[in-house]
């Protein structure tokens, strides 16, 4: 498939959801058929849906909370138990859209003022419009499998991370700076691949991965970049005009031990039997990894002393691609055009990265890239990020 063909498809895909609500919807005045754009008024004791029937396809419920309690709205299956889709946390006076693809059949609508109880229910009939709707496979099973695969990947990566971090810390404590510098970027790759997971544990990310500029006055700096600066000490001119003071042996030991300790925390949390990572978190994580690339790596701000940004860059892309791949079957069915676009653009970005090295062989130092090369990389990241930002809606819309 040519590049321009992919571009055209992406554009169509971007426009379609809107068109589905507008163009394909003749409205009651035109045809007498029920609308796909429905309104719902949720009050203390009523759940008024503008129509009890709608044609199959993409339906939009504009749910207004006309009551005084927080409310939520559900579309339930014929058994009254299976949640087809829901919108929660609607404050009084607010309106939220629930956009959902629905096949022909019998459903129930339900408002839940106060967010308690079974809700105020009514039967809702979806007639056959003749349109193909959504995936045909068992989406729930596919998503469960995706979640299992992703958690396995995360466990694998943090396993490699703790081993590498220990080795790195040992070399650094022993004063073997050359070895520590060699291990630095290659070890961080395992961190950068699963960074959204680490970020989901709150404090771990700032403790281990904060950059100097991220700190507030008087705050203690720690983690990878703290050691990075010591391994690649800056000239005074690059250090706010003051001479960089190398860490003492005691400071080195503490920095190294802290890093290992926090990494072990991450390992423990990920290996806790209760640890799960849901499908929407996986797809959001993929987008976040690319955002990380766009804001930090492609600008050379992440590894300001070592200039090993391309390693992190590759690792973020690896992590995003893996996240996409575990969801790929679901996306293939729900939105094959999006799947094709993402596959193509991942390949394009990875091809471009491969021109500058690999995790195994090492990468070009960021400060040796030309402005043109950085721009090319950035353009490829943006080209991938835009369709990737639609992944969660596709995955959760199933």
């Amino acid at each position: 498939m040519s590049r321009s063909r992919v571009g055209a498809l992406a554009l169509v895909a971007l426009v379609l959801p809107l068109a589905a609500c507008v163009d394909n919807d003749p409205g009651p005045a035109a045809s007498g058929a029920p609308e796909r754009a429905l309104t719902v008024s949720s009050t203390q004791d009523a759940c008024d849906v503008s129509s009890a029937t709608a044609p199959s396809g993409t339906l939009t419920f504009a749910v207004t909370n006309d009551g005084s309690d927080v409310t939520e709205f559900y579309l339930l299956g014929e058994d009254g138990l299976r949640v087809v889709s829901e919108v929660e946390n609607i404050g009084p006076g607010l309106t939220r859209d629930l956009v959902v693809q629905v096949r022909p059949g019998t459903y129930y609508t339900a408002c839940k003022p106060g967010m308690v109880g079974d809700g105020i229910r009514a039967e809702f009939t979806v007639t056959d419009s003749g349109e193909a709707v959504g995936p045909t496979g068992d989406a729930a099973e596919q998503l469960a499998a995706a979640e299992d695969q992703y958690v396995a990947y995360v466990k694998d990566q943090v396993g490699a991370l703790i081993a590498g971090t220990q080795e790195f810390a040992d070399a650094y404590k022993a004063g073997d700076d050359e070895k520590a510098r060699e291990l630095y970027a290659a070890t961080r790759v395992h961190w950068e691949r699963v960074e959204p997971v680490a970020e989901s544990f709150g404090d771990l990310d700032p403790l281990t991965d904060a950059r100097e500029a991220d700190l507030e006055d008087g705050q203690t700096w720690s983690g990878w970049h703290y050691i990075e600066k010591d391994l690649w000490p800056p000239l005074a001119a690059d250090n706010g005009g003051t001479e960089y003071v190398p860490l003492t042996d005691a400071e080195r030991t503490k920095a190294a031990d802290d890093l290992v300790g926090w990494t072990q925390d991450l390992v423990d949390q990920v290996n806790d039997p209760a640890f799960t990572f849901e499908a929407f978190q996986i797809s959001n994580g993929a987008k976040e990894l690319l955002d990380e690339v766009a804001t930090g790596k492609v600008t050379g701000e992440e590894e300001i002393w070592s200039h090993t940004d391309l390693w992190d860059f590759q690792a973020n892309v690896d992590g995003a691609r893996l996240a996409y791949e575990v969801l790929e079957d679901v996306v293939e069915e729900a939105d094959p055009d999006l799947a094709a676009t993402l596959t193509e653009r991942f390949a394009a970005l990875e091809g471009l990265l491969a021109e500058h090295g690999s995790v195994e062989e090492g990468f070009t130092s960021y400060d040796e890239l030309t402005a043109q090369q950085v721009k090319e990389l950035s353009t490829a990241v943006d080209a991938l990020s835009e369709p990737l930002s639609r992944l969660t809606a596709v995955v959760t819309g199933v």
Partner: protein
Amino acid sequence: MTGTEQTPEPGPRGVTRRALLGGGLLGAAAVGAAGFVGGRATATTGDGTASGTAAAGTYPFTGRHQAGIVTPAQDRLYLAAFDVTTDDREDLVALLQRWTTIAARLTQGLSAGPFGAASGPYDAPPDDTGEAADLPAAGLTITFGFGRSLFVAADGTDRFGLADRLPDALVELPHFPADALDPARSDGDLVVQACADDPQVAVHAIRNLSRAAFGAATIRWTQLGYGRTSSTTTAQSTPRNLFGFKDGTANLKAEEGDALERHVWVGEDAAAADSHDSSWLVDGTYLVARRIRMQIETWDRTSLREQEALVGRTKGEGAPLSGGEEFTEPDFEVTGREGAPLVALNSHVRLAHPTQNDGVRMLRRGYNFTDGNDSLGRLDAGLFFIAFVRDPRTHYIPMQTTLSRDDGLMEYLQHTGSGLFAVPPGIPDGSLRTGSDGTPITTSDSPFVGQALFS
């Protein structure tokens, strides 16, 4: 008068506006004088009505407070920070005198000098640059402020004998988390904020003031802004920032006189509590400027759910997520599914709310900016934040520390420029010297903005 009484005066051009200038000093003869040549008199049609009444509004230049603070926020901004290049106190005073006169003229729709752009001695450059000659005053206000470096240089030098007048609150702002400040876009000895409803009028003002500064001060950095991102009066609707959200819903408004005294204007008590003599700043305020770049592209790829959660308001109406309409007070106690607050703990509206900040409020006067693009083809755009506060130590620094550290929006923001300036009070009504044509003139004893600082 108090600033809260300021209203635009879109009346006929020329005569009426000039009458505003000198207050009671102007006699009928002066008002009627036809001798005023050049300037923008040509904009007045034969019957004395304005040619562009829609944007012809003028705000008084004189008053208890400087204009451009509680004045209804105009659409455009051009702000310039200056480095003073002279080390002679008299030269600095002379500059402020020239600036005061020019600002008094420009804000009333007059040319920078008495001859204007197209008359005067033929062998001399015109005393006005001319690009605003046919334009109405467009609500122009010009506001002046003093940076900490004017009082004490970085090396501790008392440059102009002002060190013992440095207000305690004119501090060096701390490094906030994630700051990426560019020194070339930060600080400065003097600041001039020009606001107008026409960008050409605002740029014209700064251009003529910088021209008048050559030899005494030079521009350090400037910022153009458009699309005001706050409302300073209840008569204005709430505008939107570049994230597409309404901005300034809870802003301090000109109508809230008591709150302005409490949160914006420096009072006698503050001056009395200072370790230095800062009585010169009574009825003044502090201007905080922050250039906040927005990661527009990544924001635009963010789900509506996350955008609203980070802001804490709906994108359409601007209602707090706890419910209600735009001006409904957010209820931080309301919880939803699993007991989580509807207005998230890391949402902007919660962290910036007075109830989370010891009740302090600030008067914001920010603008959107778009300075082209960076080398990666991304918009170099964002919010040029301006706030006027009574004391930055209580009214800005604690809140910004919290926001920089905890605000979920910070993932999409980068502070790239910064400035803090003490804004002296206005010059009293009727104190300006006027020439025979009734327009202000500069003499060696002209009153000037910040005069009390030098007395």
